[in-house]
C-alpha cells in the first residue's frame, strides 16, 4: 500500500490499467457442487483469482473443548497454494492467513443460523489456487455459496467486495497493481438482503467523504455480485425443472 511508483494507474479518460472504468467489477464466475465428497462446494473465478471452497458439516466439534453448548462453531481455513502467487509462497498457515481465516469465520457466523446446531462445527476450507488481489472477499463470496449449497440454514447470503483509492480516486474492486501501488484498500462483507456489514477491514487512509463514496460503491456492486451467486446456485435446478416440467 502506498509504495512509491511512477506507474500511471488511471489515465486521463478515467480508464484503469486493466481497461475498466472506476466502478466496474472484474468478470466473476461461480460454480457450485464441484467436489463430490464435500457436503457443499463452490469454485469462483474473480478476475485472476481462482478459489475452491469446500464445506463439511455440521458435525460434532472435536477437540471437545472447542464445542459450544449453545451453538455451532465455524472453522474457516483460508489457505494459499504455494503456486498461487508470483514468487513461491511458503506453504502452511502464516500471520496473514490466520487473520483472514478468523475474519471469514466471523463473517460466516453472522449469516449461518448457528443456534440450530449446539456442540457442532462447520468446516469451511478456502483454497486459493491463484491470487490476484481481493482473495479474502472472493473466498468469502464463494464460501457463502458453498454453505448454502450444503443445505445449512442461513439468514442471508454473504457478499464481499472491495473498493480503494488509486491515484487519488475511489475505485471499485482493486486489481493486483492497484492493490500494490494504490493508497487504500477497503474490503467489505455484506449480508445481501439486509445490508448488514459482517466484515470490514481497511489498509491505508481514506477521508470520511472518500470512505462514504467507497461504501456506496460497494453496496451498489454487491447487488450485482449477489445476482451471480443466486444464478450459480439456482441455475442448474431451474434448467432441469424446465426440461422435465415443473417450476
Amino acid at each position, binding site marked *: 500500500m502506498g509504495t512509491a511508483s511512477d506507474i500511471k494507474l488511471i489515465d486521463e479518460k478515467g480508464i484503469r490499467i486493466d481497461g475498466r472504468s472506476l466502478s466496474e467489477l472484474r468478470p466473476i464466475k461461480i460454480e457450485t457442487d464441484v467436489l463430490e465428497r464435500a457436503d457443499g462446494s463452490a469454485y469462483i473465478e474473480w478476475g485472476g483469482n481462482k478459489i475452491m471452497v469446500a464445506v463439511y458439516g455440521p458435525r460434532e466439534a472435536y477437540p471437545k473443548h472447542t464445542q459450544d453448548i449453545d451453538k455451532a462453531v465455524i472453522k474457516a481455513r483460508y489457505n494459499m497454494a504455494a503456486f498461487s502467487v508470483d514468487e513461491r509462497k511458503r506453504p502452511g498457515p502464516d500471520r496473514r492467513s490466520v487473520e483472514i481465516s478468523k475474519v471469514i469465520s466471523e463473517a460466516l457466523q453472522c449469516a449461518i443460523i448457528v443456534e440450530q446446531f449446539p456442540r457442532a462445527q462447520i468446516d469451511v476450507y478456502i483454497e486459493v489456487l491463484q491470487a490476484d488481489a481481493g482473495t479474502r472477499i472472493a473466498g468469502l463470496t464463494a464460501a457463502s455459496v458453498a454453505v448454502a449449497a450444503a443445505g445449512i440454514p442461513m*439468514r442471508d447470503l454473504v457478499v464481499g467486495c472491495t473498493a480503494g483509492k488509486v491515484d487519488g480516486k475511489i475505485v471499485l474492486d482493486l486489481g493486483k497493481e492497484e492493490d500494490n501501488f494504490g493508497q487504500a484498500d477497503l474490503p467489505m462483507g455484506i449480508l445481501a438482503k439486509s445490508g448488514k456489514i459482517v466484515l470490514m477491514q481497511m489498509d491505508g487512509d481514506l477521508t470520511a467523504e472518500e470512505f462514504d463514496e467507497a461504501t456506496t460503491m460497494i453496496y451498489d456492486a454487491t447487488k450485482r455480485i449477489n445476482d451471480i451467486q443466486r444464478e450459480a446456485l*439456482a441455475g442448474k*435446478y431451474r434448467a432441469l425443472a424446465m426440461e422435465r416440467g415443473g417450476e
Partner: protein
Amino acid sequence: MTETKQIVMPGDPIDGSLGKPRNGVYKCGDQQFCSSYFGIVQVSDQFIDVVPFSGPYYPRRGDKVIGKVIEVGPSMWTIDINSPYHTLMHMNDTPWRTNAGDIKKYLAPGDYIYAKVMTLNDIRESWITLKDVGLRKLEGGHMTSVSAPKVPRIIGKGGSMVNMIKDATGTRIVVGQNGLIWIDGESENVMIAISAVKMVENEAHTTGLTDRMQKYLNEVKGGVNGNSK
C-alpha cells in the same frame, strides 16, 4: 393439495399470506418471514415450508432411521445415523436378552440397523430403540444413500414411489428417514433399484415424476429380461 415450486435462497422473503410458515423459515422483522435454506417453497393446505435441496438429517422423535454401528461399549452402542451427531442405543432397548459386557455378539461395528428415534434433548443428544414392530438388524443387502430432505419424495404419496420401484425390480427396500436406503435382492435388480432411487433424488424438485419413473422402470426392466434370456 396444490403444489407450486419456486426456488428460493437464504434471506428471500416468504409470502406469509399463503399459509402458516413452518419448516425452513425464520422470522425476519415484524410479520415478515424469510427462507433459511436454498431450496424450494412448498405450499400445502395450511402450511408453507422451504425444503432444502440437500443438507444433514435432523433427528425427530418417532422417526424410523437406518443406522450404522460404529462403536460398542459395555452397555451401549454408538450409532451413526447420518446426522450431525452420533446417537446411542442402550442394550435394554433391544429385543434380545443381553448381558452387559457381552453385547458385541448381537451388533458389531459395521452392522446396520433399522431403528426408531426414542428421545431427543435440547443439546441434540438422542437415543434410539429397536423395540417396535418392524425394527431389526439389517442383514445382507446393499446400502445407498440420498440426502435427507429428499426422502419424502423417494417414498412418495402413501409409499407410492418406493412401492413402484419394489414391484418393478422385485427387491426388498427399507427407506430410513435419514436418507439411508437398504436394498436386498438379485444384484442386477438391486442396481436398477439404486439407479431409480438416484434418479428420483436428482429430479425431486420436478413435477410428474411418478409417471416418468414408471416409464423408466418399464424400459429398464425390459432390458434386464432381454439380457437374462
